[in-house]
């Protein structure tokens, strides 16, 4: 994980950008482009679209930077722009065949796989199970999980990105985690049969 960006330094860059300093804004792009791309990648069809959304998000951010009021960290505002842009594109795509629903009830007869020694997402098959389970979540549940558990934002920061109260955010995060956990249950249960 990259080192946290000093808040004061970032504040200066945003203030200079608001005054029209393009080089300051370009420095913000250098600092945040990769993480923003990684976030939006989870909401779009492929890497090319994620790059387009990242570009679009920075264009929108530049055009509206004077409206940024320092009520949150710059990157939470930027992530919100990126996720909203990705959602807009997702809505334009034809709906998937399956209705997106969230199943989080535990599977009663699934084994306890918590002690399986080789359980790590790096293993290709388990990684695939996790990736598919995350992608199957409706966006309003996927986003909290991506921001909090994959990208490592704090609950407060991630709730800010989503413009949700913390209680509502935590509830969605919990349901999303349970749904992903359930997918792993299913994977191990099928493996036993």
């Amino acid at each position: 994980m990259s080192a946290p960006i000093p808040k004061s330094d970032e504040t200066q860059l945003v203030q200079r950008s608001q005054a029209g300093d393009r080089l300051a804004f370009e420095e913000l792009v250098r600092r945040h482009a990769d993480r923003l791309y990684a976030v939006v990648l989870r909401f779009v069809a492929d890497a090319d679209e994620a790059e387009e959304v990242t570009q679009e998000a920075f264009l929108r951010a530049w055009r509206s930077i004077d409206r940024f009021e320092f009520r949150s960290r710059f990157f939470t505002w930027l992530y919100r722009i990126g996720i909203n842009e990705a959602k807009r594109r997702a809505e334009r795509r034809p709906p998937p065949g399956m209705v997106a629903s969230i199943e989080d009830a535990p599977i009663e007869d699934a084994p306890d796989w918590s002690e399986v020694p080789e359980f790590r997402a790096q293993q290709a098959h388990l990684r695939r199970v996790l990736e598919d389970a995350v992608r199957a979540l409706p966006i309003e549940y996927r986003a909290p999980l991506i921001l909090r558990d994959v990208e490592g934002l704090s609950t407060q920061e991630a709730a800010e990105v989503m413009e949700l109260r913390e209680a509502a955010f935590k509830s969605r995060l919990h349901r999303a985690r349970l749904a992903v956990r359930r997918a792993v249950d299913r994977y191990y249960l099928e493996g036993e049969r």
Partner: protein
Amino acid sequence: MIRRLLERRRYMREHRWTHAHLSEYLNEDLSADERERVEDHVSICPHCRRVLRTLRRTVESLVDLRAEGRPGLAEGVIERLRRGY
């Protein structure tokens, strides 16, 4: 008989409450009393114990899904911005 019914009702109430708060427990977002409430129930409920263990493992693994950036991405964004300034 009535005592058993009341105990069962209390167990189910704790079961529902614990199940709804497992993520907050893992995130250390609960007060000391609430943590104790989860731990008390988990100690007697094999179902919640399994869900807690596997949920912890799931959350620990999700960080491995972090994607890398794309080479040249930031410079590409800057180039596009410069065309539109």
